[in-house]
């Protein structure tokens, strides 16, 4: 069933003439076809709104409609040729803005839209050649792969992938450009590039500090006091490290050359020690400490007093 003119305007059947006029002006502004080129639905709405307003703005017609003497199309306008129908044709050139976009031929258009110096090439006679578009991807690699370098296969589409070499020490957000791996060129033009933005996932232990790797290593009280040889993870696998006697929380040990491998020389891994007593404390240790009277007492909070 067709909408009533009241429904078309979205007003109540007892709306005042002023109300109807206000709503109509709002809708007409919104859907005027000449203000909505390329939106055929706007023209439909505009026609419907205009027809509805034609009927409702005329008290006599509105009364007849309300009495059921005429239907909602009773006041339809004769078909109208909108300006849009001409403006987009050749005759519309008459109203072309002066000196703005007088594009003599297609080549000027490409020059206007293509970036300077690259992109559109060739003369009109031989068709046009164009460099293909760049394609953008993102790739997330894990921390160790980013640190040591890796090869990754990026899936573009079923049966279509791109092999990406991640250089050692790539930074989060760094963009890799693979020449010629973007969109195909047109008319024999070169292909565009693939631009891959690499994201580095955080690691639970390691942190990057330029070419160095930093981590915190928990050690026991005994290891701290007596010294120990412990196994420490690095980006290239576990290594053995010596903890010197009497190491404190916060002491920093360096594993030379265990950072990011660079041609100019590798970075290092820095291990910060953290002494951990244990969840409940050892009762024997507690008993010992209660009896223990240190021969060289010291105050760890000496420097904190004001």
């Amino acid at each position, binding site marked *: 069933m067709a909408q009533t003119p009241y429904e078309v305007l979205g007003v109540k059947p007892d709306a005042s003439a002023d109300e109807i006029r206000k709503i109509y002006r709002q809708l007409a502004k919104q859907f005027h076809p000449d203000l909505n080129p390329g939106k055929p639905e706007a023209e439909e709405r505009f026609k419907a709104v205009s027809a509805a307003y034609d009927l409702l703005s005329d008290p006599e017609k509105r009364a007849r409609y309300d009495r059921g003497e005429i239907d909602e199309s009773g006041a339809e306008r004769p078909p109208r040729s909108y300006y849009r129908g001409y*403006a987009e044709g050749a005759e519309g050139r008459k*109203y072309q803005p002066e000196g703005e976009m007088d594009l003599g031929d297609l080549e000027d258009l490409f020059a206007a839209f293509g970036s300077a110096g690259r992109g559109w090439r060739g003369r009109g006679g031989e068709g046009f050649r164009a460099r293909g578009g760049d394609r953008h991807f993102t790739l997330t690699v894990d921390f160790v792969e980013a640190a040591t370098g890796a090869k990754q296969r990026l899936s573009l589409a079923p049966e279509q992938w791109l092999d990406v070499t991640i250089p050692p020490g790539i930074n989060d957000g760094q963009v890799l450009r693979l020449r010629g791996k973007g*969109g195909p060129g047109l*008319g024999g033009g070169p292909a565009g590039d693939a631009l891959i933005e690499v994201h580095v996932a955080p690691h639970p232990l390691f942190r990057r500090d330029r070419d160095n790797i930093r981590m915190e290593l928990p050690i026991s009280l005994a290891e701290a006091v007596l010294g120990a040889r412990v196994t420490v993870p690095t980006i290239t696998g576990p290594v053995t490290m010596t903890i010197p006697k009497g190491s404190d929380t916060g002491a920093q040990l360096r594993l030379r050359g265990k950072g990011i491998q660079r041609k100019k020389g590798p970075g290092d891994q820095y291990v910060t020690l953290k002494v951990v007593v244990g969840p409940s404390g050892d009762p024997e240790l507690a008993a010992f400490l209660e009896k223990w009277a240190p021969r060289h007492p010291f105050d760890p909070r000496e420097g904190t007093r004001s």
Partner: protein
Amino acid sequence: MIAFEELLDRFAGLDRRELSRWVENRWVLPERRDRTWIFHEIDVARVELILEVRREFAIDDEALSLVLGLLDQVYDLRRQLGRVCDALAAQPPEIQAAVRQALPRATEPDTSRD
């Protein structure tokens, strides 16, 4: 094609001075012929558009000048775009396919970035 006087008759409420001013402002570009103006179909449609914009949308001369300027730019772009589409339609299918592939689809989110 209709003459100035006929055009005045066609639209109720279009007044002579008003229409003359539109022509002077170069909002409408009729053809000058034998001391009168001849309006082509496009000019008539444009007059009707201006009439509506002025009356129904309560837009004054200054704003109307801006509106027409913007509309002319939009239509100019659409004409140029139409020419590009025509030129593409005349290309061999593989070039058309390549162009289609190179155009990002505005209606779909770019899933390649996930």
